[in-house]
């Protein structure tokens, strides 16, 4: 199955945040009554991604070689080609689908937080249920329910500036490259397409007019070496340890029972 991707043309984004709100609406995410945001001296809010905020706009006032720019970045899960989060997820809540979507099943999440620690972009966030005290992760799933039924992701559908596109990844790359060339011809000499090769190729491709760092993106995100070690060594070891623990408990039971019986005999 061909891999799907989202193309985000940040040169066209007007930061209207229609995507941010449409995402919450479609995916039933909480708003102010939950997050209780305050104005912190910026337009940017909520202050960070969270299990209730899968996408949001980051605002950066940037003084560059061509003068002042107000840069906008639509943050969210990158749907990496090599998703470290999937590798480290002990419960299978995170999966990579054949169409490239990195999906998440809330019921399976045990709140361990490994996905958050190992993500090269630090995208999935954890929150703690105030009642049960149980942790949960959550993140953008590219509106799996919509795209597998022939609809566009909610954010793409709503974007009035036509900054968002979604479809076959090769096609999105071609469009992105074409757009970068057009921007260069217009004088945006540092225009670039972000996400083609990073971390196995990202499912979220960005057309940028300044270097990635100007937007707060890592220039060279790396697949965390420890993630493989984790998956191949530590997790099996953990399973061994877990099995040993169970054996220990059973053993202890029999030993204790034997002791009790011994007492009875006495």
């Amino acid at each position, binding site marked *: 199955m061909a891999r799907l991707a989202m193309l985000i043309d940040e040169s*066209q984004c*007007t*930061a*209207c*945040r*229609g995507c*941010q*709100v449409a995402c*919450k*609406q479609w995916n039933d995410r*909480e*708003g*102010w*009554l939950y*997050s*209780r*945001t*305050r*104005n*912190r*001296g*910026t*337009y940017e*809010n*909520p202050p960070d991604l969270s299990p209730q905020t899968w996408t949001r706009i980051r605002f950066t*006032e940037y*003084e560059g070689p061509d003068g*002042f*720019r*107000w840069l*906008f970045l639509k943050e969210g899960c990158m749907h990496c080609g090599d998703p470290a989060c999937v590798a480290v997820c002990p419960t299978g809540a995170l999966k990579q689908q054949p169409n490239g979507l990195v999906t998440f099943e809330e019921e399976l999440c045990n709140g361990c937080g490994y996905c958050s620690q190992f993500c090269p972009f630090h995208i999935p966030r954890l929150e703690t249920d105030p009642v049960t005290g149980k942790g949960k992760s959550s993140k953008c799933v590219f509106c799996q329910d919509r795209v597998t039924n022939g609809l566009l992701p909610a954010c793409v559908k709503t974007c*009035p*500036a*036509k900054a968002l596109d979604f479809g076959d990844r090769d096609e999105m790359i071609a469009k992105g490259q074409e757009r970068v060339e*057009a921007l260069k011809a*217009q004088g945006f000499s540092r225009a670039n397409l972000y996400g083609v090769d990073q971390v196995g190729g990202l499912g979220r491709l960005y057309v940028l007019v300044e270097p990635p760092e100007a937007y707060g993106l890592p220039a060279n995100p790396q697949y965390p070496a420890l993630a493989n070690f984790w998956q191949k060594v530590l997790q099996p070891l953990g399973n061994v340890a877990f099995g040993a623990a169970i054996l220990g408990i059973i053993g202890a039971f029999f030993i204790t029972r034997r002791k009790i019986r011994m007492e009875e005999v006495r």
Partner: protein
Amino acid sequence: MTNHWVDLKNADYILIIGSNCAENHPASMTWIHKAQQERGAKLIVVDPRFTRTASQADIYAQIRPGTDIAFFGGMIKYILDNELYHKDYVVHYTNAATLINPDYKGPDELDGLFSGYDPEKRRYDRSTWSYQTDADGKPLRDETLQDPHCVFQIMKRHYARYDLDTVSGVTGIPKDLLEKIYRTYAESGQPGKAGTILYAMGQTQHTVGSQNVRILAMVQLLLGNIGIPGGGVNALRGESNVQGSTDMGVLAHVLPGYLPVPTVADPDLRTYIGNKTKPGGAWSGGYWANGPKFLISLLKAWWGPSVVEREDFAYDYLPKVDSAANHYWIALFEAIYAGTIKGLWIMGQNPAVGGPNARFEREALKKLDWMVVQEIFDTETTSFWRAPGEDPSQIQTEVFVLPAADAMEKAGSIVTSGRLIQWRDKVAEAPGEALPDHQILNLIALRLKQLYAEGGVFPDPILYLNWDYGEELDIEKVAREINGYALKDVKDAQGNVLAKAGATLSTFAHLQADGSTACGAWIYTGYFSLQPDGFGNMLPAAKRRNSVHDPGGWGNYPYWGWAWPANRRIVYNRCSADPDGKPWSEDRKYIWWDEAQKKWVGYDVPDFVVTRAPMDPGGRDPFIMRTDGKGGLFAAMNEGPLPEHYEPVESPVQNVFSSQQINPVVKVWKTDEGKDIGDNWGTPDQYPIIATTYRLVEHWQAGGMSRWLDWLVEAQPEMFVEMSQELAAEKGIKSGDKVKVRSARGEIEAIAIVTARIKPLQVNGKTLHTVGMPWHWGWKGLTYDVGATDLVQSSANFLTPHVGDGNTMIPEYKAFLVDVEKA
């Protein structure tokens, strides 16, 4: 808009001034981006702040609030000096060649005033602003543009003072940037190129707001940008259906369809029509000569079927105003404050937050005997009597709140800025007892009819009012009445039946002055008649949804909805052809004269007598609503026939163009001057900082709707004030600090956003600071409900002055003086 939203894609140059459309009209960006990407259009944004719209611009300039006339005056001078105007267009389609009364004198000779000023009345006698005419009353013209009395030469002299240095000094825009903008935008004056100007309340909400709009229209005339695809004078209206409400006459000075409201000088129908049709009157020529047909059809719609045939068509039932100017917003609130008006009925407005000098307006509400509010949420206005700091026991106003349905909870039409009327179905039930506003009014009207049947003062206008929409109002019946229908067979001069008795009319050309037609708003005639939808069906025109058929590829989609007038998508479109009727350039072919068919043809409904050939009398007069058929470079408004720069009522500097500091015709109130709440004006020694107000994409108007919406409040939770890093450093303020903003009218609290998007301005050698504030907040909404913010005195309009434009009285929300300090 003379053009429409989709048409923005056809522009080669886009100048956005006094509009932040990426935030307030986000869908505009679809088409602006299309123009940028597909045509390589250049986008210029001029605004007091670097906005989200500015983030998309090729060229951005920060302008001092209230100096738009200086900015455009400089552009006119640049265009004239460098001969960058569209010569054929200017000579043939505008009044540039028309000769003006030799007694006319302008501000260049009279220190900022025009001839005819009466300082006592603060009004002009316009007699010296007239055209020179021949014996038949035809205006005299010199198409060589050399006569010293022709408009072209008068304009040249008038704007000679608006040189780059002076304009740069006034606006704060550096000279080289100013010249770059002028040079770039003036390129749209080449035949075959199109430039559009988008504006909104940033142009209108000034004491010179109307002239701000007029001067940008003059620039468009000089560059030949009106009546062509990708051009136009494009007002981006402030609310989704405000175009519809102004069309319906929800203004003090007009009836539906922009018919002048009757005044005490028009006591009967004959006098009204006489006054409007006499030389110089509003209906003295052009298409407005049909005005009597439109007015009489309106009277027939309102009272026709119920009254015996009367010579005056029940004209005497219409209220006659002393002066419309006494019934605009500010004047109304002055009258409420003075105790002249005792009762107030509000539908979906929140003056306690949105009104200028809002403390004054809140105080005025306390003086009412009663107030009725139709609303979808509890607002600062419905609850003004229990605002923080108020003692409800001391307020006697009786308040009735009628819960109303939201726009999605009722069917009806919505009219876009582009005059496009689209019918919408109801998509949800209103909660509880909430009713659509039209049903609330229906119940009131039916009850009034019952009550007046028992007697009352002058009951006839209510008793005989034609009101047959049913107990539960049928909105389609209202739509049909607005559209118009025939009461008798309508025949042409040859006796052919154009419309049978009872038929829904398809065009305003069928309206009659003899009482045989009824029509609620002539400009809408046809919008609800059955029309083809391009797929083989006949539908009420406003319900059509054909997004396929697009003749010429201009984005008109004539079978999608219906645009007034006559489903015409670009008005004045005769201008898209040259004087001989040929397209200015082949790739911009739009409307042209077809010699074989002997008529105007093209991709839109021609805005012209369709069989009038270019060489016929009047064949080169494309502005058909005007008596002389020419675009009015020189045209009378209250403060003069040519826009002249005056400072806002509160300004930190002296006017350098003349000793006339402020617009000489603005109406000045001084109610309770000097008191804590009153019509107070500040001076720069106490209030040295320029302030401006605006809206955000995340909120809606006075916030009554959006401050209850969880996801929007999360994105913009609290009142803020934006300021430059330099001003913040001077005042010891950091981003996120709570600050106080003070004007002569009041004080508010807000969170500081310190930003590089506003810079200090260099104005005539002085360094001036600007701060900007949204006006969405008050003391109600989610954040206030749970006590999550202490910013309860946070309405930006506590600070704005109670003064309005010289023509429309729109408040000066966009330029005033404040001081700022850390709280």
